[in-house]
């Protein structure tokens, strides 16, 4: 019974009730922290590691990313006369080692995180979905 003789004034409960009442009445800056996800999105961090992207002009198809990948996510495939990496994102752990290892700085990771899909096959991102062309300023 010690706990009740200690807390018989119920100060803690009353303080808590005041805090929740402030939330209900929106006293002070109590903005909603969640967002209405499919309709609005939070900004991802600038160094967020999402889906990969390969610079079409810079990539030389050397295969160093393939060697460095801990999960054998990457395979070098032929695409339109040149060789490019192909990512099986079902196995990728988004560690970013391929990006670190690229000698031409052709690889980067985008902020795209909505990668869920219906089949395993559609998780294999070939060069047609990975490549991008850097805007060259003249």
């Amino acid at each position, binding site marked *: 019974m010690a*706990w*009740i003789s200690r807390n018989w004034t119920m100060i803690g*409960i009353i303080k808590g009730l005041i805090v929740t*009442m402030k*939330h*209900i009445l929106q006293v002070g800056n109590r*903005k*909603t922290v*969640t967002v*209405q996800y499919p309709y609005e999105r939070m900004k991802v961090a600038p160094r967020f590691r999402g889906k990969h992207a390969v610079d079409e002009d810079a990539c030389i198809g050397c295969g160093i990313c393939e060697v460095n990948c801990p999960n054998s996510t990457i395979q070098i495939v032929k695409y339109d006369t040149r060789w490019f990496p192909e990512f099986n994102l079902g196995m990728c752990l988004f560690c970013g080692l391929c990006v670190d290892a690229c000698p031409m700085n052709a690889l980067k990771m985008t902020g795209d995180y909505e990668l869920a899909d219906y089949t395993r096959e559609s998780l294999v991102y070939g060069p047609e979905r990975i490549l991008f062309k850097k805007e060259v300023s003249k």
Partner: protein
Amino acid sequence: MITNAYELIVAILSAIGVYDMILGYFQDMGMEFILKVIIVLVEIAVLLVFVLLTVMFLSWLERKMFAVVQARYGPMVTGPRGLFQPIADGIKLLSKEDIIPATADRWIFTLAPYIVFVSVLLVYIPLPFGESLIVSDLRVGLLYIIAISAVTPVSILLAGWASNNKYSLMGAIRAVAQDISYTIPLAITAIAVVVFVGSLSTVDIVNAQQGYWFGIIPKWFIFLQPLGFILFLIACIAEMGRIPFDFQESEQELVAGFFTEYSGMKFAMFFLAEYAHLFAVSGIIVTIFLGGWTGPAIPIIPIQITSLIYFIIKTYAVIFFAMWLRDTVPRVRIDQLLHIGWKIMIPLALLNLLVAAFVVTAGVI
């Protein structure tokens, strides 16, 4: 003098001028009782629709308030501010598979949710929604309410036992222990009010609270018996099984308590019963301690409508408090619950009754 909803319907029909015509039509066939049955069925239908709409609104309100307190949005997509979310939930539950576990006691398992719902619905019968807006003014109204509330733990125990699941049984045992230990202070504090009124009828209790002291303070029993009100409120929250006393559910420990194994329509029945119970118990608190449907009369508008509005406002204030408490506090331990019930609430309730009886006998009020 109109005293209940049946007579009110008859009076409305007479005012329109169709009652005599209908009555004559049935009298020609020699079957007036069919007209009575029809009017009673209309009453029941109105009550059921009211209860269902209330349950829908309350479940939305509860989720929304919880979300606001936690700095979330809550339901937003279905309808304006997610107001139609309960309809979507109901349709989902109705279309779900109705699973009965292989080892469950089929009959009791199927019966239990309906007993819970019916026992909650029966509480509405002597509940005065407003001047003459009462299904039946029983002379033993308060006793009836307490007796019917005592059916709920039985059906909860049936549900927990029939599920043949350790979590269900555990939740049911806890719920029964809690209900038994909190019905006693509930009944004793109610008796303290009955001592003042001299009647168990809910209408008499409300009528005794009309008028003002010194022209300002309404003659509500909350001002006469503040201790009794606090005890009654705590006991009611415990009997409803809401946080901080939600031992029948205990979702962190017991999955979902006694309705762990229920799904589909049967789960919906428990859900309906929970919120219908919340409204009924809040209505009882309002009737006994907060003056029921009494309030300043507004000219032109008939008293049936104003009293209904006062009752609804007061009831929602009590419901708001219960939800506010749920959003704030964690659950107490089971031994703490029983300590509070037996060692604090019951002695205080007896003291309250003693003081009330003394005051009435001495003729102070």
